[in-house]
């Protein structure tokens, strides 16, 4: 019966593309592309495939549309059974109490290791799976499912009998054994709770075959919904993606005919497969109160794959130990990778997509963070990037008590003004409340900030000119030039004044800066020049010109140039 059904499906012509091999390649639509990456992840986890991503794509593209469905039918279920089982295993804990001896604890740890061994299967060869009939495939899946259940019972039963197992499932009313006994296929995915076959009333003990039937119908016939005369069964709505509206709940959103999965064939063949794999590339990060699912997207499959893989490795190894800001960790990896390729096209088309979790079937706090073109251009310059890639203390004291730090690159990527952080850091330096001494990051941040301020001013009221301006290519050069100016001014100020004089005027200058009063600022400096008994006329001449050109005549960003002079007094 099943096999017949499958043949029927192959007869359906999907807009004449049925005989064409599905091309596994990025579409430029992040939503579908995340699914493609998830699909690759599932395939890699279950099958023995080429290691190199390019070879892997070529290899997968050799399979026909029909074969891909066969492969994913098996892989998807096995992958999720494994994933869910591992989740169940990690959630299984002993009750905290005096009764439990060290010995029991040790036994429990050993049992966990045994179960983990049973869950981790040996990878299959795709051709072996393709040679199986659907019934045989189902048998294989169910055997694996039963084996895990058996191992759970065998290894945890003792603890369960002694009432040692903690109730950590279904709002703390069930132990893992009770959960295993209740569920059919060990498959839980928050993202697809709306899918019929994952509904707890369907996916229950002794109902495994029905679950497989419904899933089969979804993979081969694209039927997302239950049979119902009023609704298109192939509908593309919240059932298959949390990012969409529900067709029943928001019927008035769809003014015309609601989109169905076959319509998506315009973008990619077998869209439902990729939609089903959508959540997998998201990295789940949770530590203390922090909960995030993140995914980095860039329209280049190769780069996207590599970055997400690297990210996963690093997050597993570094983050748990160091407690580094996740933002810093992720963007550092991205920027390192991209600057190696020296491609601002990729950088400016890169998005960090994150959501906190799923509650009552809705995504929480979804956020898209990208790098604007201007920032991407600037970051690709090595010396600027290295200088911005530093932490600045903005609060607290030398002992580190109540201290607060910012990562300059992060603020820059987020398009926030840097000046406010630099002035805070400079004030800490003046009051000797920080041990930070490096000047270069401060001066580079000031010149970058100055440039962005002046660009913002020039393109006021003209949204797009910033992105199409030819001047953009000159930006890096201009930033470096203004850095040179600031650096020289800062050095000259430092050489001109004695330590005593420096300390005397610094506080007045900072207070003039805070009040945004440039004339008071200039007044203090000019008076100090006059009061010098011995002065190098060349230094005074240079500073005189610097003040006239960059402060007196400058309304846009004089503060940046002025602060660079104060830096010379530190």
């Amino acid at each position, binding site marked *: 019966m099943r096999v017949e059904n499958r043949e029927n499906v192959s007869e359906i012509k999907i807009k004449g593309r049925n005989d064409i091999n599905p091309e596994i390649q990025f579409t430029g639509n992040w939503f579908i592309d995340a699914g493609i990456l998830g699909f690759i992840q599932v395939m890699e986890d279950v099958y023995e495939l080429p290691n190199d991503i390019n070879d892997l794509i070529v290899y997968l593209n050799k399979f026909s549309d029909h074969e891909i469905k066969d492969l994913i039918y098996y892989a998807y279920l096995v992958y999720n059974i494994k994933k869910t089982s591992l989740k169940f295993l990690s959630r299984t804990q002993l009750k905290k109490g005096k009764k439990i001896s060290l010995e029991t604890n040790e036994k429990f740890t050993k049992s966990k290791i045994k179960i983990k061994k049973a869950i981790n299967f040996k990878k299959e060869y795709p051709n072996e799976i393709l040679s199986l009939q659907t019934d045989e495939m189902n048998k294989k899946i169910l055997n694996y499912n039963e084996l895990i259940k058996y191992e759970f019972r065998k290894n945890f039963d003792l603890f369960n009998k002694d009432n040692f197992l903690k109730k950590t499932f279904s709002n703390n009313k069930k132990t893992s054994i009770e959960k295993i006994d209740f569920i059919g296929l060990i498959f839980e995915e928050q993202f697809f709770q709306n899918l019929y076959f994952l509904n707890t009333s369907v996916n229950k003990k002794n109902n495994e075959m029905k679950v497989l039937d419904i899933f089969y119908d979804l993979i081969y016939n694209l039927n997302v919904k239950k049979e119902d005369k009023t609704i298109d069964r192939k509908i593309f709505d919240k059932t298959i993606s949390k990012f969409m509206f529900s067709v029943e709940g928001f019927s008035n959103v769809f003014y015309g005919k609601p989109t169905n999965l076959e319509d998506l064939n315009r973008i990619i063949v077998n869209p439902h497969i990729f939609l089903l794999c959508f959540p997998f590339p998201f990295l789940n990060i949770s530590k203390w109160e922090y909960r995030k699912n993140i995914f980095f997207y860039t329209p280049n499959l190769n780069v996207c794959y590599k970055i997400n893989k690297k990210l996963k490795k690093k997050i597993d190894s570094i983050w748990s130990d160091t407690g580094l800001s996740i933002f810093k960790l992720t963007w550092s990896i991205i920027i390192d990778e991209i600057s190696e390729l020296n491609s601002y096209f990729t950088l400016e088309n890169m998005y960090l997509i994150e959501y906190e979790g799923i509650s009552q079937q809705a995504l929480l706090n979804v956020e898209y963070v990208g790098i604007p073109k201007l920032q991407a251009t600037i970051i690709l310059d090595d010396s600027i990037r290295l200088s911005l890639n530093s932490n600045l203390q903005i609060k607290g004291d030398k002992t580190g008590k109540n201290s607060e730090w910012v990562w300059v690159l992060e603020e820059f990527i987020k398009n926030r003004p840097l000046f406010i952080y630099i002035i805070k850091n400079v004030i800490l330096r003046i009051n000797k409340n920080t041990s930070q001494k490096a000047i270069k990051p401060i001066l580079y941040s000031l010149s970058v900030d100055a440039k962005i301020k002046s660009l913002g001013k020039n393109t006021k009221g003209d949204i797009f000119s910033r992105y199409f301006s030819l001047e953009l290519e000159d930006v890096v050069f201009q930033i470096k030039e203004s850095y040179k100016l600031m650096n020289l001014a800062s050095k000259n100020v430092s050489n001109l004044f004695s330590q005593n004089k420096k300390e005397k005027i610094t506080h007045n200058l900072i207070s003039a800066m805070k009040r945004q009063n440039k*004339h*008071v600022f*200039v*007044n203090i400096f*000019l*008076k100090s*020049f*006059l009061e010098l008994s011995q002065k190098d*006329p*060349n230094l*005074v*001449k240079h500073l*005189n*010109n610097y*003040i*006239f050109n960059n402060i*007196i*005549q400058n309304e846009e960003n004089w503060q940046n140039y002025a602060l660079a002079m104060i830096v010379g007094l530190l």
Partner: protein
Amino acid sequence: MESKKSNTLLSDDLWKIKKYTNNVFKKVGSDNYRQKIAYKLLNTAKISNQSEFFSILLRALNTQKTDYDVKKLAEKLQEIYPLTSKNFENVAYSIIMGIMAVKSDGGN
């Protein structure tokens, strides 16, 4: 629109004012005199006292009123006068910096 125009003009003129002042004070007095006058001007500019500022300046220029650069400077000041408080400060500091630049430019 009008204010934008006057702002651009002013920003262009600041450089000229500084240059003319510099040329004038190359020929006026000693280092000590220039230092003294710059100090006085800085004090009046600080409190935005326009009349006192120009009084000090014009008294200093009066001794050289037939000089070409003095005429040019006077013309420029006449052209941009009257000044808003903000513009006055910009003009005042350009003049002061013009005076202070004399020594380093190798004046008397």
